[in-house]
């Protein structure tokens, strides 16, 4: 089972709640995905519209564990204050820590990320940092007290899959006992299966499901891919080789003559 900060989960998919065409579609997609953890954010509340109040009702109704993010924060200070507001608002120590470097790539600003992670961990948060695949940054995050790491697959919302698979494999090998979750950039169920086959503990996605023509069916597809990839990892995948090896027994082949063997 997946274990994050002392809590066990049977689903290995974390699902974002943004970008669905309707609240009902979101509810159905979460249901179809089997996700037990959903990500949320906090945004300025308008005195007139009070949009957040209705959304909170929906979240409560879904009954999933909530993982608030600090999306859009540009500095450690902004992320820390946002995390503190999220902790009070959602009643959880869990925080998906994002410090963003620029609008084009939405890549993690890793210096601010490490700084914020250290302060939040010291303040009693359970930090799940959205980071790059860089090993040295991952080491700094682990040293800052992060027991879970969430490297990106590729830029948020890009649906490109794994841009740097080798580095992600290195991270897995280097942190065999740390829960690793690929967060961002997955577009197709095959991407998720690839992540899970590598021995990653879980995937976190949003756009791939929310923006699919049929989000509910896509949620089901991702759930099966995640499960399939995980089972493959647990079962032990056969090493690739360059030349063919017959799967059918050679012994007793009709018309076999020893001269043909070479």
């Amino acid at each position, binding site marked *: 089972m997946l274990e994050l900060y002392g809590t066990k989960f049977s689903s290995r998919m974390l699902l*974002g*709640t*943004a*970008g*669905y065409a309707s609240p009902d579609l*979101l509810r159905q997609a979460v249901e179809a995905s089997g996700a037990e953890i959903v*990500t*949320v*954010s*906090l*945004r*300025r*509340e*308008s*005195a007139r519209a*009070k*949009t*957040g*109040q209705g*959304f*909170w009702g929906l*979240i409560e109704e879904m009954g999933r564990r909530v993982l*608030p*993010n600090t*999306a859009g924060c540009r500095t450690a*200070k*902004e992320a820390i*204050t946002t995390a*503190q*507001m*999220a902790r*009070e*608002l*959602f009643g959880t120590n869990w925080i998906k820590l994002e410090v963003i470097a620029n609008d084009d790539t939405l890549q993690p600003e890793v210096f601010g990320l490490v700084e914020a992670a250290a302060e939040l961990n010291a303040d009693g948060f359970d930090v799940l940092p959205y980071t790059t695949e860089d090993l040295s940054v991952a080491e700094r995050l682990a040293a800052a007290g992060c027991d879970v790491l969430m490297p990106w697959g590729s830029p*948020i*919302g890009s649906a490109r899959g794994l841009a740097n698979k080798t580095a992600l494999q290195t991270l897995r090998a280097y942190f065999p006992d740390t829960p690793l979750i690929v967060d*961002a950039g997955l577009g197709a169920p095959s991407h998720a299966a690839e992540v899970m086959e590598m021995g990653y503990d879980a995937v976190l996605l*949003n*756009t791939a499901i929310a923006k699919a023509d049929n989000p509910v069916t896509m949620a089901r597809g991702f759930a099966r891919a995640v499960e399939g990839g995980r089972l493959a990892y647990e079962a032990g995948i056969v090493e690739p080789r360059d030349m063919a090896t017959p799967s059918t027994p050679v012994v007793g082949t009709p018309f076999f003559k020893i001269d043909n063997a070479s």
Partner: protein
Amino acid sequence: MQILVNGEQHTTDAGSLEELCKRLGFADAKVATAVNGCFVAATARARTQLTEADEIEIVAPRQGG
């Protein structure tokens, strides 16, 4: 006094953050607050005095990835 509420100019004579939240209709709403970039817990709003040019953030749950 003039303050900024969620990035917009706002004129108020509310003495405390709690009073401001009440006047904006957030008395029973699920919101979190910050003043000048620092988190202010719900329990601290009543004793948080507002001063000219304060920058207030009032946030609520929203969809996120």
